[in-house]
């Protein structure tokens, strides 16, 4: 076998192996997207009911709570960035990081200090490499987040907002995550978690002109709100984590699908080249044989004479 042909054969073998791997990863990601979507759907009833309850307390009583009132001057804000632990997901992580950086720049332009909280090794690596300060970070659960994970993430945020800014607390919490729109579309977006703008929450909770009843609060509106808001934050963080996970798997699926397609194309081109090389080799051999035998025939014909 000619050297050229051998090189092509070797490359085809290696690309085929890569293709098998990317195909497997594509299929794993596809099954995980479905699972993650199901989890998003399963967490929806809780989130809707909770949002309804928050709206009910927020609009139905005149309670003033630190978590719903806007500070007059915002000194510090917290930004929670949700990324994934692993890459191979196209632009998934870089989009989320970019969104977080835009948000940070915007907040800093408004004269606020920004504390960054990060979920996922990718985001953390990005910040560490640039030697930026990270208030706190978590990793290891981004593929399949549980409610307990959401609680651990939300706890320091709730603690920070309850503290005075003079003691290192924050006035507002923003969250940057990747919204799962569909299998094909996922968008990185930022959202303000706290303080709550009740009008927006209310808009989400009731579709068209539904009037919320006057609730009886047990034990009191303040206590209910006190208990509700941390749960609300947790459920929002949980939802964001689940959506990010679903988006990550969808992005992986897409990235792996195009990798598989590319590998297929590469194999095709390489096999064409290998075929041409083989054919060239055969042609050359034939012409050598023909040439040789012709030379021989000429020689014998000459001696005969």
């Amino acid at each position, binding site marked *: 076998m000619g050297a050229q042909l051998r090189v092509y054969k070797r490359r085809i073998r290696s690309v085929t192996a890569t293709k098998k791997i990317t195909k497997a990863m594509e299929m794993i990601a596809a099954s995980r997207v479905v699972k993650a979507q199901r*989890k998003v759907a*399963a*967490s929806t*009833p*809780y989130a809707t*009911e*909770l949002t*309804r*309850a928050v709206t*009910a*307390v927020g609009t139905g009583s005149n309670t003033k709570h630190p978590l719903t009132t806007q500070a007059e001057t915002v000194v510090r804000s917290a930004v929670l960035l949700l990324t994934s632990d692993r890459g191979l997901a196209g632009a998934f992580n870089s989009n989320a990081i970019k969104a977080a950086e835009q948000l940070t720049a915007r907040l800093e332009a408004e004269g606020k200090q920004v504390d960054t909280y990060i979920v996922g090794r990718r985001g953390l690596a990005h910040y560490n490499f640039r030697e930026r300060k990270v208030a706190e970070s978590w990793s290891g659960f981004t593929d399949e987040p*549980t*409610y307990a994970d959401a*609680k651990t993430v939300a706890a320091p945020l709730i603690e920070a907002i309850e503290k005075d800014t003079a003691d290192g607390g924050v006035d507002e919490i923003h969250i940057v995550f990747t919204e799962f729109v569909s299998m094909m579309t996922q968008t990185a977006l930022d959202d303000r978690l706290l303080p709550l703008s009740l009008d927006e929450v209310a808009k989400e909770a009731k579709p068209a002109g539904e009037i*919320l*009843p*006057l*609730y*009886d*609060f*047990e*034990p009191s509106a303040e*206590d*209910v709100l006190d*208990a*509700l808001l941390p*749960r609300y934050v*947790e*459920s929002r963080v*949980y939802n964001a984590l689940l959506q990010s996970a679903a988006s990550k798997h969808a992005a992986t699926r897409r990235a792996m699908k195009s990798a598989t397609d590319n590998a297929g194309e590469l194999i095709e081109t390489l096999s064409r080249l290998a075929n041409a090389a083989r054919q060239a080799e055969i042609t050359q051999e034939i012409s050598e044989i023909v040439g040789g035998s012709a030379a021989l025939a000429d020689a014998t014909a000459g001696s005969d004479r």
Partner: protein
Amino acid sequence: MAAELHVALVAADREVWSGEATLVVARTTSGDIGVMPGHQPLLGVLESGPVTIRTSEGGTVVAAVHGGFISFADNKLSLLAETAELSDEIDVQREERELERAQAEGDAIAERRADVRLRAAATR
């Protein structure tokens, strides 16, 4: 037809039970509260404890609920809990072990959880 209320018992990651009921008894921070159809709109904070739902078919559903909220309006009752289990989902032996372990380690929260689960399981 007897008056009914629609009950949805939801945990953070799933819907545990939903259906029609005639009476729901739950424990709020200020004491047990019973909700029947036509109750005044209500929003309360739940203690961890068993919740009893009398279904319209005459059966009883008991669930262990750990913290959360009860909200009632328009004959729709929602019980929101971070974690909730129906009594027949509870593994009694496991919870007994858990209770012993919690008592030994002085883990008050885990002890309370196990205790609530056991009490809910005892009613079935």
